């Protein structure tokens, strides 16, 4: 552990909450107060420190003032929106700001629920700073600088050994003979709140559970974020790689103008020329300006002039993306692909000469991908089932394209437990290997 050398010169400390989270799931003020009280208790359980919540009239005089703030908030540590930095606290001292603890109000604060950031875990960490502790490299330690997820039941939480030693090095061990003061909050802490429940609990939402199962029908890089579409829902991943929420959003609530009952999107891409977003569903396509469909759509897929080698007209698109390597738009369907040099035209268009070509030209990637995006440094990412393949920028003919797990790398799912590999790879159905049987 590491300490700053700064400590409170008193053992009775007061705290107050200046404001409350403003983003969903909107923890109720009484729940926030309870979570904070238990987070202080984690430190007072092992020392003789005592923490008291101030009355509302004295909240500005508290030693540790807790607030939820956004972006620049006049302390030299601006917040950066969802993800990134979560919170900070000032070390003990005589200054007015000493001990103050700020949480980024643009996080989805929650508890015992993996849909957001666990307020209790972060509060315990930040109060460690407010009491004089620095970041620890030890594992396990609540003072590790990185968010480590929920820490479980707040009423039974105890500090890891490293943190216990750290705080006791500053304030000593809890004296077993000490008598709690009458207003010691640990004697009348309220019952811990229950984890928040969905507001519309009519039916269990199966799609909320199967983020880790893959099978995304469409994947698109839109304005630098990656959208994974599945059924009626989509998940969204920020530029930083952070999943906005483990819970999916309803497509119809975000993308306004798709037909009611839309339960499968074949492919989506953002047009390079004008940043319009194109949705392919069955034999039609829609053009969106931002999140609203442009009038005049849907139009028939036949506008695109997608004629297969056998002369038949394509009835459905598998994948669509703009390849950063050359700025061209590619449409995949039935093992073939077409290239377009798009302008600002609407209505009928024609693929570049010489197309379609066989999808197998994209060596190492599945020939019938669910969808494709350009991501990172211009590489092409092919998605299929629960895997993805990266074709390095500009490369069609690459050896050893290794597939990776969409669930683990994109959806923040745990790595699967290794299973015993079948000794005979010809046992189809038992094979645990990649899609292309490598």
């Amino acid at each position, binding site marked *: 552990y590491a300490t700053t050398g700064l400590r409170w010169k008193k053992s009775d400390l007061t705290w107050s909450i200046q404001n409350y989270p403003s983003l969903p799931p909107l923890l109720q003020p009484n729940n926030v107060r309870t979570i904070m009280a238990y987070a202080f208790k984690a430190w007072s359980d092992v020392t003789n420190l005592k923490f008291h919540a101030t009355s509302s009239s004295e909240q500005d005089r508290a030693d540790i003032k807790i607030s939820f703030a956004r972006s620049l908030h006049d302390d030299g540590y601006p917040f950066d929106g969802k993800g990134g*930095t979560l*919170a*900070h606290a000032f070390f003990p001292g005589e200054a007015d*700001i000493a001990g103050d603890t700020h949480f980024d109000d643009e996080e989805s604060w929650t508890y015992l629920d993996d849909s957001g950031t666990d307020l209790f875990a972060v509060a315990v960490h930040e109060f460690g700073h407010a009491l004089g502790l620095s*970041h620890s490299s030890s594992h396990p330690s609540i003072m590790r*600088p990185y968010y480590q997820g929920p820490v479980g039941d707040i009423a039974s939480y105890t500090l890891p050994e490293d943190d216990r030693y750290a705080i006791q090095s500053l304030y000593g061990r809890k004296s077993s003979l000490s008598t709690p003061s009458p207003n010691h909050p640990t004697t009348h802490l309220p019952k811990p709140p229950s984890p928040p429940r969905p507001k519309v609990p009519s039916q269990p939402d199966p799609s909320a559970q199967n983020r880790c199962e893959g099978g995304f029908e469409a994947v698109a890089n839109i304005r630098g974020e990656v959208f994974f579409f599945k059924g009626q829902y989509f998940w969204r991943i920020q530029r930083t790689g952070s999943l906005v929420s483990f819970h999916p959003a309803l497509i119809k609530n975000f993308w306004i103008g798709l037909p009611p009952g839309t339960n499968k999107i074949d492919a989506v891409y953002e047009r390079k020329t004008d940043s319009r977003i194109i949705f392919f569903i069955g034999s039609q396509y829609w053009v969106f300006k931002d999140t609203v469909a442009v009038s005049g759509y849907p139009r028939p897929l036949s506008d695109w002039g997608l004629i297969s080698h056998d002369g038949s007209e394509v009835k459905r698109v598998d994948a669509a993306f703009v390849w950063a390597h050359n700025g061209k738009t590619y449409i995949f369907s039935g093992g073939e692909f077409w290239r377009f040099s798009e302008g600002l035209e609407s209505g009928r268009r024609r693929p570049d000469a010489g197309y379609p070509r066989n999808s197998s030209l994209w060596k190492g990637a599945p020939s019938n991908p669910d969808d494709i995006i350009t991501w990172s440094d211009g590489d092409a990412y092919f998605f299929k089932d629960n895997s993805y393949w990266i074709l390095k920028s500009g490369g069609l003919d690459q050896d050893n394209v290794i597939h990776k797990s969409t669930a683990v790398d994109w959806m923040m799912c745990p790595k699967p437990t290794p299973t015993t590999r079948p000794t005979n790879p010809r046992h189809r159905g038992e094979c645990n290997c990649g899609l292309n049987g490598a």
Partner: protein
Amino acid sequence: PMPDQYSRGVDWLSRYGYLPPPDPRTGKLQTKEGIERAIKEMQRFAGLKDTGKLDSDTLKLLNTPRCSLPDIIGSEDMLKKRRRKRR
């Protein structure tokens, strides 16, 4: 890593105390060796293999949500805080 990742990495290392902040008076550049040392220190602190390179595990960690306070707090940081408090 691409240049963008590299500059973001250097920014991250400065922000969390592994590299001295750039000096606006001299515009002094960080040295390649200094950056490698800082990456190694960050990797050791985080429990990663200390390769000194912005490898995939390190880049992933750079994108992990975290506390805003630096991991390495030098005397410079403490002085800065006191000055800020006085203002």
